[in-house]
């Protein structure tokens, strides 16, 4: 009798819990401080001033100084706090602080003109001095800026020289068409603030940043949020929103709930959660290309030596089907475009019409049989908990089993994985999944595919590829340069150095209360290129 009783209580408790979570949305009687529950659809498309936007981010910003920011959150906040010189979208330049950028006839000098009347958030003038100061500090070895490598061409630094208050000349040691891509990453920092700091990275002045962007720093509560407020003297016109707050929430499930509760207005969502969020009808779901390639890597350093053989790599590729892989890893073709070239679609000279080894089981069997891979076991390393990686590994395991090759999946934590992945000595695995975002200039890819480079994770070596990358880096003629990179894309694809899977997309959920998304330009990593254009409807 007593046992029976406790059974009933457990049941009662469980039903309580279950009804608690299946309760209908109808009883949302008093939305106390949750501001957004019933988004009123007054589509007054005229931008309105005022309003506060909350963007969900996954972590505290590491450092709000563009010379050091490398993490997503810092980069995202810096985009609103500091204005860039210019940005590039689909090969077209949009100028921000800069007015123009012109190369000289010999392509060894670039002249940058700044807009006139620019100011920092504290009212000081922003001039050529600040730009030169920023470049000097990037180049200063004592300052640990991670951008330094980009300003060194074949061991020689690029020099920045002030001509007058709004003009800077960049002197290159040799012709480098990739220079514009380098300059895109530069965001001036204020000289008058950091001039006398011995170690800018450790300076407490980074805690109250002074920028030049549409929003200025207001408040940072560690572990909670960063709030920026409108900068009325922004050169691009007064921003519409009063404030933007970046709210820190590390747990994906909890922050998805907060999004639905109106405590967050904009955040990244995983493909797996997109449908649930969309079903609420309160959000506009924006998918856009991240300029990122997700690929399967063949480790040519593996101690079995199998991956060094081009035919083995081709054979393994033949066993797979790209569309299926995308379905498995990203749940829908909406969230990833099939990839064939190692250059992402936003990159210059991108060409997806290259050789591909795909979806031909007979050819796979033939090539693998011929090279003695059938019956062998390949080791596939993945980061445990990374859903896309795990799904890809399981799919590949299944597909290769069909052609007689065993795959042993080794799951490890993130730091162990990145140790193995980046250490050039690692020889105890054959397959893994990687991804990269390299920017729009194809010269950036040379570090991934040239012989002996630190970031050549596949350990691929082909003298022809090395030569082509070198030619491409120094070729000023656009047509000739295009030919070189087309050839490179074909060579690397034909050699099956990697198995390109997809150009992945970012999904951002935006509360329908907010508009101006197209004008603000959705951008990989930082979400919006120019947040001054966002407004509350």
């Amino acid at each position, binding site marked *: 009798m007593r046992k029976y*009783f*406790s059974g009933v*209580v457990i049941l009662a408790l469980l039903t309580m819990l279950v009804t*608690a*979570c299946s*309760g209908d*949305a109808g*009883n*949302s009687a*008093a939305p*106390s401080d*949750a501001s957004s529950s019933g988004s009123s659809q007054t589509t007054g498309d005229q931008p309105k001033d005022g309003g*506060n936007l*909350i963007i969900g981010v996954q972590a*505290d910003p*590491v*450092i709000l100084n563009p010379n050091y920011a*490398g*993490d997503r959150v810092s980069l995202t906040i810096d985009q609103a706090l500091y204005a860039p010189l210019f940005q590039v979208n689909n090969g077209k330049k949009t100028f921000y602080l800069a007015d123009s950028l012109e190369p000289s006839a010999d392509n060894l000098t670039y002249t940058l003109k700044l807009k006139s009347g620019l100011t920092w958030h504290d009212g000081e003038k922003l001039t050529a001095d600040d730009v030169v100061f920023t470049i000097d500090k990037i180049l200063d*070895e*004592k300052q*640990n800026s*991670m951008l*330094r*490598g*980009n300003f*060194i061409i074949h061991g020689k630094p690029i020099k920045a020289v002030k001509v007058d208050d709004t003009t800077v000349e960049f002197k290159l040691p040799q012709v480098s068409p990739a220079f514009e891509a380098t300059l895109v990453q530069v965001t001036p920092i204020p000289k008058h603030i950091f001039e006398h700091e011995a170690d800018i990275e*450790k300076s407490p002045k980074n805690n109250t940043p002074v920028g030049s962007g549409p929003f200025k720093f207001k*408040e940072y*509560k*560690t*572990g*909670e*949020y960063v*709030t920026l407020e409108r900068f009325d003297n922004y050169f691009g016109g007064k921003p519409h929103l009063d404030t933007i707050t970046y*709210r*820190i*929430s*590390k*747990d994906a*499930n*909890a*922050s998805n*709930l*907060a999004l639905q*509760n109106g*405590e967050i207005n904009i955040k990244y969502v995983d493909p797996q959660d997109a449908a649930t969020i969309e079903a609420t009808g309160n959000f506009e779901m924006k998918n856009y290309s991240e300029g990122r390639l997700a690929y399967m890597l063949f480790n040519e350093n593996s101690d079995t030596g199998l991956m060094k053989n081009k035919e083995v790599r081709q054979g393994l590729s033949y066993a797979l089907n790209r569309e299926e892989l995308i379905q498995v890893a990203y749940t829908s073709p909406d969230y990833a475009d099939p990839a064939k070239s190692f250059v992402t679609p936003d990159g210059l000279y991108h060409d997806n019409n290259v050789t591909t080894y795909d979806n031909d089981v007979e050819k796979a069997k033939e090539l693998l049989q011929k090279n003695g891979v059938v019956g062998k076991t390949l080791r596939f390393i993945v980061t445990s908990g990374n859903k896309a990686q795990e799904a890809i590994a399981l799919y590949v395991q299944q597909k290769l089993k069909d052609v007689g090759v065993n795959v042993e999946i080794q799951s*490890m*934590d*993130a*730091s*162990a994985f*990145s*140790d193995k992945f*980046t250490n050039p000595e690692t020889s105890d695995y054959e397959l893994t999944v990687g991804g990269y975002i390299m920017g729009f200039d194809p010269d*950036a890819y040379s*570090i*991934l595919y040239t012989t002996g480079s*630190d*970031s050549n994770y596949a350990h691929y070596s082909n003298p022809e590829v090395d030569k082509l990358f070198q030619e491409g880096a120094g070729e000023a003629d656009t047509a000739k340069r295009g030919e070189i990179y087309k050839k490179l894309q074909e060579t690397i694809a034909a050699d099956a150095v990697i198995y390109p899977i997809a150009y992945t997309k970012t999904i951002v959920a935006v509360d329908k209360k907010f508009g101006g998304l197209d004008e603000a330009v959705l951008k990989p990593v930082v979400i919006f290129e120019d947040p001054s254009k966002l407004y509350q409807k």
Partner: protein
Amino acid sequence: MKRLIVRRLLQTVPMLFFVSIVCFILVKAAPGDPVRSFITPNMHAEDIERVRHNLGLDKPAYIQYFIWLKNCLTGNFGYSLVNHKPVMGQILERLPATAGLMGSAIALAVILAIPLGLVAGANRNRWVDKLVNMIAYIGISLPLFWLAILLMYFFSIKMHWLPSMGMRTIGVNSALDVIRHGILPCVVLAIGFLTVYVRYIRSSTISQLKEDYVQIQYAFGSAKRIILFRHVLKHVVLPVITLVGMSMGDLVAGAIVTETVFSWPGIGSLGMTAVRGMDYPVIMGITLFSSVLLILGNLLADILYGIVDPRIKTTR
């Protein structure tokens, strides 16, 4: 009593030393490299080496340890390898959030656990006991992150009674606002503590009820309620003191899971970030800080023991 305190305080020194060594070895033995958080694929090998050198990470591990130890003795707990802010500053900045949350959770748990445990113990194997036991079992078995999400879904999303995340409404600085934000995480944590406390108090009540003094009270015809709350209670509180003393470490170490789910800006989430980034100065700082508190908490528990139960004082 004074001698006891001094002796115990002296004992903490080698203990902390030992803790710091073990912690350092564990961090260094784990896979991963703190320099990785600085490097981008575009960095050249010499740049990476330069960063490593500037951070002092190119020296042998034991030298790194002694440098760290030397700095600690001069009150400098180092800088985070990731964001370069002083470690002690970061811990102290987050301490109020964690201490407030954990303190109120422990207090709530104790306040609820004492009557529940007493009543359950006094009614052993009766339905009240069964019910309390069962709730305790469910509480122990429930994954707290799941319970947290469930409560959040019900009280924030469905009913709109409480905010779901953070410690404050943006831009608002009032104690009431912080309390509103703290209710859900506090309840979740309290359930975690409560279930353990209740079990202790229940068994201690059962054993006390067999003692002679209780039998005598019964013989004198005292009411059960009076025996329980006037006499047994005093003895039952003893294990609670130990338990709370042992929870002192948690007061500063924070609750990683609960803090993460509720975006509570405490030391737990700081610690998790540090572990992910192999940020050893921060990891060491948090470990040492919570070890000190744990040791002090135990000491405090011993002293309180002496006050509550004079028999213990004389035996030492």
